[in-house]
């Protein structure tokens, strides 16, 4: 069964690599698009020095956590959920529902995107440089924990995609929701949350736990303790990730149920 899903994903991935010229074009565009954010950050912080006690490389580390987890989540979820309203309208979703496989996994595997590979490389390199410049050397367990953190952060991002796009089952048009509750709110993550009002930190910690994508997990590696309640928060990312993803999955199932019951 698992091999079947793997085969789906592989075919989709390879088809995208087939058009060489276009793929390269896409890579250049993506690298430029994402690196412009990095470049602006470097320009600004070189000029003004540390922001709220966070130096250039610490903020870069925040940024790489965000970009990397976004890209991992985007690879698997952007294709399917970004186009959910269209899939519903065109009836493609009905086709998926008739298949004898889990619709979510099918959706993920057949809509895998090859467009984020450049982001992995870029974010990985910048993460390496930042860790090196900060004089952090990771032990074996820390590497494992880093990977778990990235996985958890990706799950939070994926849950963000899902929860903001699944309302399309009820409203048809929901890109306003997606933009506000996902795109705009994750903009806060570029800088340490300490520079914002306490209310924002509360919102992003307890209500929409985007702060666990980078703000809390990163602090563990750079010996900072800017938390709200307990230092335990620095360790929570993988668990928060699993938890919110589970909620998002239930929400998706609710959406599917509502969708099926309206069909005659």
């Amino acid at each position, binding site marked *: 069964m698992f091999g079947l899903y793997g085969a789906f994903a592989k075919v989709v991935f390879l088809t995208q690599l087939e058009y060489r010229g*276009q793929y390269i*074009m*896409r890579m*250049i*565009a*993506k690298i*430029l*698009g994402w*690196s*412009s954010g990095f*470049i*602006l950050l470097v*320009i*600004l912080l*070189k*000029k*003004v*020095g*540390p*922001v*709220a006690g966070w130096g250039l490389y610490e903020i870069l580390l925040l940024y790489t956590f965000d970009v990397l987890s976004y890209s991992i989540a985007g690879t698997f979820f952007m294709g399917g959920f970004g186009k959910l309203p269209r899939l519903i309208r065109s009836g493609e979703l009905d086709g998926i529902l008739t298949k004898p496989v889990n619709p979510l996994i099918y959706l993920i595997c057949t809509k895998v995107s090859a467009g984020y590979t450049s982001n992995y490389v870029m974010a990985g390199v910048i993460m390496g440089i930042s860790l090196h410049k900060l004089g952090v050397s990771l032990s074996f367990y820390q590497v494992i924990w880093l990977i778990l953190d990235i996985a958890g952060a990706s799950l939070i991002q994926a849950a963000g995609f899902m929860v903001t796009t699944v309302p399309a089952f009820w409203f048809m*048009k929901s*890109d*306003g*929701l997606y*933009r*506000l509750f996902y*795109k*705009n*709110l994750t*903009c*806060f993550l*570029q*800088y340490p949350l300490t*520079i*914002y*009002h306490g209310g924002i930190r509360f919102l992003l910690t307890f209500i929409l736990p985007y702060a666990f994508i980078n703000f809390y997990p990163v602090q563990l590696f750079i010996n900072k303790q800017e938390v709200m309640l307990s230092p335990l928060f620095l360790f929570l990312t993988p668990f928060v990730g699993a938890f919110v993803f589970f909620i998002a999955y239930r929400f998706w199932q609710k959406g599917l149920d509502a969708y099926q019951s309206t069909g005659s």
Partner: protein
Amino acid sequence: MNKNRLKQILQTGNTMLQYLFLSYREKFVQNIKKAVTDYDKMVPDILNKGRKEMYWVLMKCCFRQQIQYKWNLLFQMIGDWLGIYIKICIWQAILNAGGIKNINFEMMVSYSVIAAMVNGLLYSRIAEELADRFRTGMIAIDFIRPISLKWYYFFGQLGENLYHVLFEGFFIAAVSFLLWKLSVPGPETVLIFLISLCFGIIILFSIQYAIGLLVFWMKDGTYTRMIADALFLLFSGIDIPLWFYPDWLKSFCDFLPFSYVAYKPIAIWLGMMEAKQWQKILLIQLFWVLVLFIVERLIWKRIQSSIEIQGG
């Protein structure tokens, strides 16, 4: 040509535009075919006056179309607020750190708010739409149409943007100006700002249009657009004012058109430019408008000739 005839033509034009904009993409193709056949009968009679009115109608249509999405507007307003709030928090934190001299908080807030307004006016999908038309072959219809494709996109986009700026931009700006007690410059400065802003919009839309035309050879428009967006973000100063840039990069930006779209007009608003400087800015903007006009004509000529060769 009598008045009734003109009226009739305008009405057809109007219905055509309504077809164009009020229908969804799936319906789009059928509708445009019908509209074009209707319209073709009128082509020889179209006068310049009629054409000008049509641009106006087009702008109004796009404006009205936006009103239908009220919820989106609310969400967008909150989102834009958050954007400005984030910016202001960042500037606050940076100024608190004390590494920056001779720039004060009020200036930074004004810059962020005005930049958000300017950005709202600059939003454009021209490159993508054009790419779509090339891919689907609809561009063939544009060749026989008596309305300039370029201005058609310009005014459509402008109508949409004006709507956003009028309904949410001004509101956000007014509240921010009251909240942070920002000062408004004198009427002359505002006037010069508006003139240079208009030039800026024409420059950016021309760039977008030229990039959209490149799709004729590139096949896919989204990525060319992403590249243009990244260059704009990096060199225009829309995100971070150019005075934070290192000197070499700042002088590099002066050679590109992008800073004349965002940074320079905003600097005029902030009163950082003396008479000599803003005169120079306006002249350079005019220069860029002309250059881009010529570039875009050249590209269009090449496209036209290669299409005619391909067509039997």
